[in-house]
């Protein structure tokens, strides 16, 4: 049984290249091409393909929004996201939007074909090259490890206390407090107090204060 493909990319050369790749793979049939979000929506409705290949940047809107809409409308359609952009944000954006696979445009056409095959067989799972690495980066298991004392200093910094006040609270000298603070900045990759607190919040090392408290 052949897998029916819809190609959505505003660059004709890219669509042609992918079409040839699918043609020579045998078990695929490219049933349609679209160059915009609007055309893609129409083609999805009239052609009901098994798998749609989306570029994330389209002339009339975000490809990721189109992916989200397609996922909402067609529960079991396979969706492969193609992108020229670098960065983990793109990969996780595709994951959040409900894509089945993510392929950067520097990968060979065969990778797109493999991704499409995966998307057809298990549309509600997600695959991407470098996925494990990206997940590891996002979970950040190698994130900064704070000593208990540093954690105490961080909490007091977040409360807005100055160096002298922290020293008094923890019964340590000012210079020791300063050492802890500079160590903290280094571990958090921060240049000042505000950045340190922002970084700590992002990494979940401290909790944002309750509103109104």
């Amino acid at each position, binding site marked *: 049984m052949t897998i029916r493909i819809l190609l959505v990319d*505003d*660059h004709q*050369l*890219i669509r*042609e*290249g*992918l079409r*040839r*790749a699918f043609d*020579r793979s045998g078990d695929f049939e490219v049933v349609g091409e679209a160059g915009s979000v609007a055309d893609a929506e129409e083609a999805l409705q009239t052609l009901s393909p098994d798998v749609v290949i989306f570029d994330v*940047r389209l002339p009339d809107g975000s490809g990721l929004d189109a992916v989200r809409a397609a996922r909402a409308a067609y529960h079991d359609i396979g969706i492969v996201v193609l992108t*020229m*952009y*670098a*960065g*983990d944000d793109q990969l996780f954006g595709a994951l959040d939007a409900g894509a089945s696979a993510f392929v*950067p*445009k*520097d*990968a*060979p*056409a*065969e990778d797109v074909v493999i991704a499409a095959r995966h998307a057809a067989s298990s549309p509600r799972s997600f695959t991407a090259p*470098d996925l494990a*690495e990206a997940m590891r*980066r996002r979970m950040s298991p190698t994130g900064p490890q704070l000593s208990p004392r540093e954690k105490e200093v961080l909490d007091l910094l977040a409360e807005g206390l100055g160096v002298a006040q922290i020293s008094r609270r923890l019964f340590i000298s000012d210079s020791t407090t300063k050492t802890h603070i500079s160590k903290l*900045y*280094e571990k958090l*990759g*921060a*240049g*000042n107090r*505000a*950045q340190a607190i*922002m970084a700590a919040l992002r990494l979940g090392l401290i909790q944002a204060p309750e509103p109104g408290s």
Partner: protein
Amino acid sequence: MVTRDRVLGQLDNQRLEIAARAAALALIYTVSALTGTADDLLLQLILLTALAVAAVLPVRSRAFRRWRPAIEALVAGLIIGSVEPYDPSLLPYLVTPALSAGLIGGWSLAIITSGATIVVLMAPDAIGAESLVGTDYLVDAVQWSLLALAVGLLAAWVRRVQIQVPGDDESYLEATRLLTQLRDVARELSGGLDAVSLGGTLIDDLRERHGISRGWVFGYRAGGVPIALASGPSSEYELVADLSPGTSWSRAIDEGRALAVSEALTSDPTMRGAIVPMSIRDTVVGLVAVERRGQGWSDDELTELSIAADADAVRFEAALLFDEVRSLATAEERQRLAREIHDGVAQEVASLGYLIDDIKAHAPPEVTPQLAALREELSRIVTELRFSIFDLRKEIGPGASLTSVLADHARHVGETAGIAVHLELSESPARLRPAVESEILRIAQEAIANARRHSRARNLWITCVVDAPEVFLRVEDDGRGLLPPRDDSFGLSIMQERADRANCRLSVTDRPGGGTSVEVQQRTAGQRRAATRGTRKDSEHDDSHSAR
């Protein structure tokens, strides 16, 4: 360019001129009819009516239109003077040429026209015309001439008011004029409109004439972070511009006046500090912090400091705005470039890759390895383009600072390229100028990209110390080190240009123990002068290597 409002004003004036003549003629007809002299004056009445029509007919020639009221006054004077026996009922007509003169040519033409009226009216009296003997001619003539002068001047005033009220178009004209000026200044830069040198000059001036020991100049916008522009002379003591509520800084801004600080500005206990807001009317555009050894600041001295600071405020604000406009334009251009690469060359190269995939699938096995190598190279190029787009899209916004953006970028590149990144960052609460922040970030990006692309580095050490307005950046890797220069290598010269623009010294050297070290350091005032003379000591050294 004639504005719509001015055209409307001219139309209104023309109606006024016609109405004035109609009223004058009506008055003259009525008076002469009532006094029963209409028959004696028939010829003059006809002539005056013809003159009135001639005076309001539209004409092409601007010069004629301008001088027509004066001619009209002369002719009218002759007509009125030719009445025998003397009859004052025609004199009211003399007011109308003066009115037109005032509306068309302003007060000078109004005076000339009234003057012409007087001369013409006086002439018969001067030559002792018999018909006038025993009449009130002289008194009447003088009275009506003066009345004409008064009306003419009033009309001139009306004209001025009309011209002075600017419509929307006038505002645009003014804006265009300012933009043109700005462009001219921009062309002659970088001397005149440079906030940094203005700040430096202000500090020098305050040191010379107001006895300060140290000074700092910040750009400031309500609710924003102070941007450090200049400080001097340098010292080991760090100034912290703490604008949180309750501090002297925030009080000085709120009250808009210079304050002597009770707490220390720096940790130097021998100094007495003051904070001087730099304002245009009531808007604070900058902050000047000063210190002097020993003696505190009197109210009079604080006032003098304020006056000195405010004197530069407008130029200073203009320089900051100009800086901002330039940064915005650059940022915009980078975004455009990113889009262009993304939509253009990157897609085309990527599709070439797909083409090679296709050829490879059908090619005989003996050429497959070459095609695979070609495909790998193309993939590498597309990867490079993707990173370029990523770099170009990265901007330092008002929320994020240089070190945080730099840290994000370094971590991302390090992780995707499998390089361990070691960061050492320090940043003062005050910000660098946006233009400097952006140049430093771009230099760091280039250095990091070089480490990733060419050197097979395993470690990347990044140090960035911002103590605005000073900045220090070092990017080191443990890769293959400097390679011999290549003809097509722009990387280093672009970094050098960026460093020059940020007023920094760039050095690219071998790192002890292998690898490359790129350092960017703010020039001191002395080095800056040396650099502009082109006698920079390390320039030879810089050019002899390539980071690629």
